[in-house]
């Protein structure tokens, strides 16, 4: 069988999930597909079961915080890998800050357990149905989610490190 490429993956995902495919792009050769968060679990399960697409390996799960994007402040990125076609792809879901819930995929990949715990620990994203959603790298009594952009790492008043001098305008942070 011919190895499938990004376009065929995209066509198959669009055919199966239609209106739930909100956006897609190819970034540095890797297919990115944005889906309705509520459908991500089903989509990953479908990709895993699919005979030709055969997405068998969960590479990692990443959280991202975009404080300025109203209604889509948090992104959950699943990087998946199909060994059969040697193709990597990203499934992305954007969550509003008022409702940072997404279904767990620990039932599909045992390894998702700690990856989701880590994402919870740093971004506060709640993975519904996770068997043991606790902090993992930080202390249990920490009362904030440190990777969110509002928690600035070091002395932000230092003028020499002011982002304005480097072509970036995000001083509200």
């Amino acid at each position, binding site marked *: 069988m011919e190895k499938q490429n990004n376009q065929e993956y995209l066509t198959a995902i669009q055919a199966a999930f239609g209106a739930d495919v909100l956006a897609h792009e190819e970034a*540095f050769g890797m297919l990115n597909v944005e889906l309705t968060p509520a459908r991500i679990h089903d989509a990953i399960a479908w990709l895993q079961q699919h005979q030709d697409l055969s997405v068998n390996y969960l*590479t990692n799960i990443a959280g991202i915080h975009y404080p300025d994007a109203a209604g889509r402040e948090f992104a959950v990125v699943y990087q998946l890998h199909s060994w059969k076609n040697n193709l990597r792809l990203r499934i992305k879901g954007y969550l509003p800050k008022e409702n940072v819930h997404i279904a767990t995929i620990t039932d599909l990949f045992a390894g998702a357990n700690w990856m989701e715990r880590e994402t919870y620990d740093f971004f506060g994203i709640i993975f519904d149905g996770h068997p043991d959603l606790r902090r993992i790298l930080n202390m249990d009594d920490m009362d904030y989610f440190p990777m969110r952009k509002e928690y600035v790492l*070091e002395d932000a008043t230092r003028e020499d490190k002011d982002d304005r001098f480097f072509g970036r305008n995000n001083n509200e942070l």
Partner: protein
Amino acid sequence: MSQDLKDVIQAADPANVATINFGPTHPSTHGIFQNILKVDGEKIISSEQTVGYIHRAFEKLAERRPYNQITPITDRLNYCSSPINNIGWEMTVEKLIGVDIPKRVQYMRVIIMELARIADHLICNSVIGVDAGALTSFFYPFSEREKIYELYEELSGARLTTNMGRIGGFERDFTPVFHEKLKSFLKTFPKAFEEFDSMLARNRIFMDRTKGAGPISAERALSYSFSGPNLRAAGVDYDVRAMNPYSSYEDFDFIIPVGVNGDTYDRFMVRQEEIRQSLRIITQAYNNLPEGDYKADLPDFYLPAKSDVYNNMEALIYHFKIVMGETELPVGEVYHAVEGGNGELGFYLISDGGRTPYRLQFRRPCFIYYQAYPEMIKGLPISDAVLTLSSINVIAGELDA
């Protein structure tokens, strides 16, 4: 798990169950992690892990640092094979900015990364020996690792946290001393390594201790997103070097050894064979080392020579621009993976065009596979749990980031 072990677990009388701490600071954990074990006599019924003791917030730190200042952070992930982390990160940035790396640099990187893999596997395997009670086989390979560290030193000035190379190549070319030491290493290492191998590989006591200790099936290992030697020991031949070749790995002839049972002995044997294969790769790369420059032509990222900075206005400007992080960067997101000592070490970098990453996530193989540890040691005696821990080679720096 055999049936009689299952019976032991089921029959465990609550009155006989003891809760003990394995770690956080225990000689045989080789790092700071805690496991709270529930045991019935010697048999482990369940365990619970606590990690994060040396969490240093690398991902947060990376969001406030220009790209060239992130390389020293990567040193401290898997500190047994820092150069692989350094070079993996540099290649990620090079992918983002889209630069052609000279063939010579690629081959030099392969040599360094494979030396690092040898050092990493050598320590892991000799530590398995220690945990099985064989101390000689631990001290013996240290003189060999020392030679690798001297090679690092020759190229970067450092031994453990190497900060090897730069974005675009190396800080300096292989020096005459490096050539001399590498040649002598390639000559003497195989013999010393086979002596080390003969101490353990077919040693009856070692085999009895390690066979069947901490097994994991290929299916479970895949579900847990295992990678590297631990996955290959379970019989799955996934290796980033072969699957997505980077830095010209496609030019070299090497095999990917796999195990059968996924137990401690198989992990040991897979690493031993990988050391031999790494040596093959180094020999091929060194014998065919192309002529050329040791760095790409990349004035926006690669610091100019000091003599130029002192005498040449343009070089001084570039120097300032690089140090102050005033370089224009493309917007985009890249994922780049290399085969680290413990498996697929990935860098997921999101750039918004600013001088620091908007988000940088490390895919740390240790963190991902260590969660399978309770499943692997269930029903085993504590002594096997110790062996399992050392054979999956959990490095605290990479685990906690």
